[in-house]
């Protein structure tokens, strides 16, 4: 199966490790993963709140381009960043459900000589890996089972809400299942989809950090060695402010926060570099993760 990728801005800045690890994993799993040519900003959540129609048009351009890039059939456009995923999904849905919207948007697209025919399905890498590729197939290729590693899976708010395309909007389990398949032990905690603070960490920091802290603290309390997430903003928030949180709230939080794709990579035995591990502030201690034969994972 062939996939088009929509990196979005985050994966080219704070979330580079995310894209690097996705590409590496896709390669290792022999999944065709090709970048959407000439993609543009998804408009993120802010533009929609200013002018919905224009925002749709902006996002729809990417959908139209996707159709240009692959001739026929349904196109799986993979958007790893939660914001991109949500905005593109919403656009896709609205263009399908509301004739007036699609008419309006297509009129705008036509000016750029483009047209959207509704062939695109926006997908999240988590969905693709677990539901298309399949856990058994991943398990088959594991070199270094993540034995004894306790992982807190954090989904954030946008992947499963409001469109719960591939998992329950209140209690998602896809990432937990994946982590289990990798040989690790998912930590059962109820905060999987609670707010990470989002952009508040940059605006009303106090509020942002408070929310942020609840997550980290609970995960650590439940014995997590590492937290994995599927959203660049969440990863950034949860990883970067730990020092500050410890200082302000007198906490002792020491929790590596990685992308779920990096974890897969480790299990598959990909190198630290390929997975962009060096970009993490806190390097997960994975020493105990060894090859059945005893030799250590080459990355560690």
């Amino acid at each position, binding site marked *: 199966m062939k996939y088009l990728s929509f990196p979005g801005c985050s994966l080219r800045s704070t979330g580079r490790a995310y894209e690097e690890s996705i590409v590496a994993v896709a390669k290792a799993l022999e999944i065709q993963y090709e970048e959407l040519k000439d993609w543009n900003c998804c408009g993120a959540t802010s533009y929609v709140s200013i002018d919905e129609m224009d925002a749709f048009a902006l996002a729809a351009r990417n959908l139209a381009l996707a159709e240009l890039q692959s001739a026929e059939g349904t196109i799986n456009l993979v958007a790893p960043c939660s914001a991109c995923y949500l905005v593109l999904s919403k656009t896709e849905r609205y263009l399908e459900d509301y004739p007036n919207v699609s008419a309006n948007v297509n009129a705008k697209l036509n000016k750029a000589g483009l047209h959207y025919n509704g062939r695109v399905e926006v997908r999240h890498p988590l969905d693709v890996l677990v539901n298309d590729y399949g856990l058994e197939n991943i398990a088959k290729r594991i070199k270094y089972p993540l034995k004894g590693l306790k992982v807190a899976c954090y989904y954030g708010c946008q992947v499963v809400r409001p469109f719960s395309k591939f998992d329950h909007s*209140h209690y998602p389990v896809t990432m937990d299942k994946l982590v289990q398949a990798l040989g690790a032990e998912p930590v059962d905690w*109820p905060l999987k989809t609670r707010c990470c603070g989002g952009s508040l960490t940059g605006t009303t920091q106090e509020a942002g950090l408070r929310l942020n802290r609840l997550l980290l603290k*609970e995960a650590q309390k439940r014995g997590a060695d590492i937290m994995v997430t599927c959203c660049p903003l969440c990863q950034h928030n949860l990883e970067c402010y730990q020092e500050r949180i410890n200082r302000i709230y007198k906490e002792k939080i020491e929790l590596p926060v990685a992308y779920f794709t990096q974890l897969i990579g480790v299990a598959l035995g990909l190198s630290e570099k390929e997975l962009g591990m060096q970009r993490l502030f806190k390097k997960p201690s994975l020493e105990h993760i060894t090859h059945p034969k005893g030799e250590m994972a080459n990355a560690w």
Partner: protein
Amino acid sequence: MHGNGHNEPMRIGFYVCHCGHNIATIVDVKALAEYVKTLPGVSISREYKYMCSDPGQELIQKDIREHSLNRVIVASCSPLLHEHTFRTAVEKGGLNPYYFQMVNIRENVSWVHTDTKAATEKAKDLARAAVQRVFHHKALETKHVKIHPDVLVVGGGIAGIHASLTLANAGKKVYLVERQPTIGGHMAMFDKTFPTLDCAACILTPKMSQVKNHPNITLWTYSEVSKVDGYVGNYKIAVKRKPRYINEELCVGCMDCIEKCIYKEGKTPDEFNVGLSKRKPIYIPFPQATPQIVVIDRKTCIEFKSGRCKKTCIEACDRKAIDFTQKEEIKEIEVGTIILTTGYQIFDASRVPFYGYGKYPNVYTSLEVERLVNASGPTGGELILRDGRHPKTVGIIHCVGSRDKNTNRWCSRTCCMYSLKLAHLLKEHTDAEVYNFYIDIRAAGKSYEEFYDKLLDENVHFIRGRVAEVSDWAVRPSEEGKLIIRAEDTMIGIVRRVPVDMVVLAVGMEPQADSQDVRRMFNISCSTEGFFLERHPKLAPVDTFTDGIFIAGACQGPKDIPDSVAQAGAAAAQALTLIDTGEIELEPNTAFVVQEECSGCRTCLTICPYNAISRDEAKQKAFINEALCKGCGTCVAACPSGAIKQNLFEDEMIFSEIDGLLKMEQSACC
């Protein structure tokens, strides 16, 4: 294919009703009558104040005699209201009632229009249509069907039990079919009943044994209806009796066999205790089960799984009642009427994962709690949580799977009251602090509101707010090891975190999983939610659109015990009425195949919803069983060569009606 097929000249009598002022003030009745005079075939055209009055009817009869009318048309109200009246009048006048036709100029004209000119024009069109229509009317016979006196009741919950007893006491023979090994339904599982707090078992079990012992009731438990044929008054039913591997005649329910089963302990979740305890492969659902007969569950019995069991049970039974060779058996019966009391199922709480059912051991459904607080329950009535603790604080969450468009939109009606009841019982058993999280308290019912007040006095806490989540996420030391209920208290407008030891989910009521199959089997309809559809929400609440089939209890919609019993009584009464009338009249609007015109193409066979059409293989033509035909006419519309006709609605009748409606008066014509 137009024109009058009959040779006799048409002598139509046409009567316009003023209906007091109801029609006459809007429709120019004189002009209408005058106009109809000019139409071909019309002998007399009159207008009169009240056609449905005795003088009005006599007027018609007189004209029939004196002017030997052979068709009669009355333009007045809706045929649904007075068609029968006038048909009878016409018949009394010595004319076949089906030579009569009615024109609706009240509901369809005078009551919905204001402009006299337009209204009168419309009335004329309708009149002309009727005049052209009756040319094609034929003399028909009213059908009568005998009603078989026996009754089938499906479902042995409280509704089914009550309906059966009512009928049996009236001297009718009743077949009560229950899917489970025992009757009693959900009610048997309840501890106490609101608002009176008398124990469910105490009021139910006597009725159960009455059923068992009643000479007029044939009780078939562990059985299911597998086939329904026939029509009102003459249903042919096949009942599948699942093998319980016990000879029902011999077993006395001494339970020695259970005692001696090679399983020393139960291994299978006990259905009656909703999985809170375990049972053996050979068991009796509960001490007062009716009938008092053991059943062997072949899925878990070693003998059936391996065939290498010592079969200690057989040795144990000195009456030799155990029979591993027992086979499924099909019983065929004939009944005249059917009452469906198939009940409901509870909402599956795991469908709302954020309430943690199945994840946190101390989250229970209301039904589980009923068993938990019940003296004959798994814990002998002592409230011990799954983790062995006794709860000090309990949260009851209302409307789980009700009033929620993500699950079920409807209100389950019983949850408020049983939650109050459980709150009371929990306090009684544990003296715990009990919190009710509710959207609204719906205590509409005799002395229900009073019960609510009583609970308030018992210091049960009520928090108005929909619960967001139940979790074990402690943020304060006081919350450690507890379940935290997060909900907005809409009274004071803040989000509250209430730590509790036990959560009770007040799960809603749903249609049975197989309600659609049952519906199809009995040829009745379901409402959009999947509950059985009553014929009229107000005026025929226990009738269905299929004659002779009635519904009662929660299969028709969420209901508490009193309402279910009331409905069961009503359904029984409806059945009795039919039975004691002995026969019912049927509209002769059935369809029939004109044999020499039928090409045997089988189109009609595929589309008749009542399997009324069969194929005469010898003649290779379709044949309609008039008794099975309900007269919808869909086969007539589908017959590609026009070989099927429907009495009262023949193509010619409708074509001439269309023609009449649209034929403009000469003056208006182009």
